């Protein structure tokens, strides 16, 4: 019997297999950032261990960095210590680092692909759950905890249990105004936040093939929100073209590509689970609750918890409505927004900024709405400025910031206030995620832009 794409990559990376033990998997690349690495480097020091492969490791600063005044000393001393600790660790252990002010500083999952270091057939880890983003290139990429970060630093391997495989077939073509973000929000609403638990998801089908690399990254990025270990997409000509010309594209491109071309699921391979989604009928999607599975098409209304049969889900919906300050039956498009956040590893790439800019160009932001535009990396920021997008955003009334995770997780000063409501292109609408008491609706860049114009959740079709 044939193998699935995930099985092929997994098997290519087994260093050691023993009955009853997890597979020892070789890791081709580890991405490192300031928040989940300090304790790992400490562990190495305590045990007198070295980083086995500094040349398969790269660090950047993103989670806890300011997006204003980036060249001044960081105001918060605890944040400053965390950034300084990463810089010192990188120096001590000989790891490449891209610090604030450097063109390749930015959200780790934007930086890897833009450098061409993310390639098909790799195993990629990072102490960050959105590492699944890199699966868009046909890699097995997943988030790990700090103990595992230390393990990979020390051994370049990770003991891992082989996940099950799930195929999600998205067939058909998206209507104009419907994007990769809407596909993944619809998938999570369908299978739930635990639906992917224990699986590597392979996204397949004509609608996935039609997506740009940026769109594919958006889909794979949120695999974790469905509980999946990882999500991936078989590489194709778009993937090869994207990598070609990037700084770390293979020197022997032909040899690499001939391997990459073997990376697909065999016709006779069998997935543990298969799910199909119709792309033709998809609409712009938005979340109403406090987990990414609580989403609906933008044309729908806030659901009534009383209609939910499952008692756990009903209780969760009741709590979510209370937290979100919403009343059942309210049309989603009537919900007024205070803040629009455009950015993150989900939607902070150049294509996302272009999409939002195309909607707002020549228009003015709604009164009392603030919009933060945070490019995913410094390189994305520079590219956007080259195209004049910064001016489009600033003329519209948005704030044009420096690169980082910013309001996606509200670790730096970019946070929502208590009760403040956002339309956010990020990935998590958890309670307090974007600031204590803040309320988040997850949306695509197009919906974010239209919402900033109207002040209520909207799609470009409503303009």
């Amino acid at each position, binding site marked *: 019997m044939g193998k699935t794409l995930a099985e092929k990559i997994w098997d290519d990376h087994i*260093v050691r297999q023993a009955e*009853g*033990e*997890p597979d*020892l998997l*070789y890791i081709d*690349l580890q991405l490192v950032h300031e*928040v*989940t690495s*300090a304790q790992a480097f*400490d*562990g190495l020091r305590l*045990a007198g261990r070295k980083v*086995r492969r500094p*040349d*398969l490791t*790269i660090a950047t600063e993103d*989670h806890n960095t300011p997006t204003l005044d980036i060249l001044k000393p960081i105001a*918060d001393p605890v*944040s400053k*210590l*965390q950034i300084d600790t990463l810089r010192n660790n990188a120096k001590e252990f000989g790891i490449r680092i891209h610090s604030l002010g450097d*063109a390749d500083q930015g959200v780790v999952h934007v930086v890897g692909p833009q450098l061409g*270091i993310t*390639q098909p057939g*790799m195993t990629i880890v990072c102490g960050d759950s959105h590492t699944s983003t890199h699966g868009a290139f046909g890699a097995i990429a*997943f*988030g*790990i*905890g*700090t*103990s595992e970060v230390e*393990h990979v630093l020390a*051994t*370049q*391997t990770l*003991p891992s249990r082989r996940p099950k495989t799930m195929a999600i077939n998205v067939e058909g073509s998206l209507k104009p105004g419907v994007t990769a973000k809407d596909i993944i929000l619809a998938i999570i609403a369908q299978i739930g*936040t*635990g639906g992917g*638990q*224990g699986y590597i998801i392979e996204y397949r089908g004509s609608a996935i093939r039609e997506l740009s690399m940026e769109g594919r990254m958006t889909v794979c990025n949120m695999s974790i929100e469905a*509980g999946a270990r990882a999500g991936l997409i078989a590489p194709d000509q778009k993937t090869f073209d994207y990598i070609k010309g990037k*700084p770390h594209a*293979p020197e*022997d491109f032909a*040899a*690499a590509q001939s*391997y990459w071309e073997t990376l697909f699921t065999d016709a006779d391979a069998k997935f543990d689970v298969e799910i199909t989604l119709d792309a033709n009928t998809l609409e712009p999607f938005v979340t109403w609750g406090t*987990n990414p599975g609580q989403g609906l098409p933008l044309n729908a209304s806030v659901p009534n918890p009383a209609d939910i049969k499952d008692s*756990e*889900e009903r209780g969760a919906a009741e*709590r979510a409505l209370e937290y979100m300050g919403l009343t059942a039956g309210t049309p989603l498009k009537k919900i007024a927004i205070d803040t629009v956040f455009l950015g993150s590893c989900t939607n902070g790439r150049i294509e996302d900024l272009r999409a939002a800019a195309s909607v707002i160009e020549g228009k003015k932001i709604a009164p009392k709405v603030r919009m933060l535009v945070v490019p995913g990396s410094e390189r994305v920021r520079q590219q956007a400025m080259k195209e004049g997008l910064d001016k489009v955003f600033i003329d519209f009334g948005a704030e044009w910031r420096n690169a980082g995770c910013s309001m996606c*997780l*509200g*670790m730096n000063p970019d946070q929502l206030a208590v009760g403040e409501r956002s339309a956010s292109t990020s990935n*998590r609408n*958890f*309670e*307090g*995620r974007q600031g204590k008491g803040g309320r988040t609706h997850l949306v695509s860049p197009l919906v974010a832009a239209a919402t900033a114009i109207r002040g209520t959740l909207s799609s470009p079709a409503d303009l």
Partner: protein
Amino acid sequence: MEKFIEHTGTGVPLRRSNVDTDQIIPAVYLKRVTRSGFEDGLFSAWRNDPEFVLNKDEYKGGTVLVAGPEFGTGSSREHAVWALQNYGFKVVISSRFADIFRGNSLKGGLLTVILPQESVEAIWQAIEATPNTEITVDLDTRTVSYNDVTVAFELDDYTRWRLMEGLDDIGLTLKHTDSIDAFEAKRASYKPTTLPIRI
């Protein structure tokens, strides 16, 4: 890592599903560069509510957290495990854990026990009726016991052995350095490296 063989303590009922790691410890508490001191951030948003279970006198000192399904979803932050441990929890019981959280907990010696939702419900009822009910979690027999009830749970032999011996994963892997060397010797040359830097 400390060995985990058996633990007896009182339970804390957390009747919520989808408790994500941002709830367990919000990002603003992740700035420390140590593994200790995270207890202040544990469930911080909910700790302001006097009715929240951790604020109730009858559950003070509880060491077994009994939570709803989909516990630990979201961010990979191992700080969530440290916050629970720093606070004093030794065991978390739920019907479903998110993968990364579960992996982190078992690496760090916080035992996560998966029981059917009916069993979780029964424990909730028992500890809500009598908060000082003692719960014993025995890794040797892979059972949870309280009052006259004993429920079995599953945990693979390898992980159980590692926890009971308190073994360091890295130390175990380094015994196979020869296999890693051999693997690296035949790795394809076109695989990317981060050094030397190319711009």
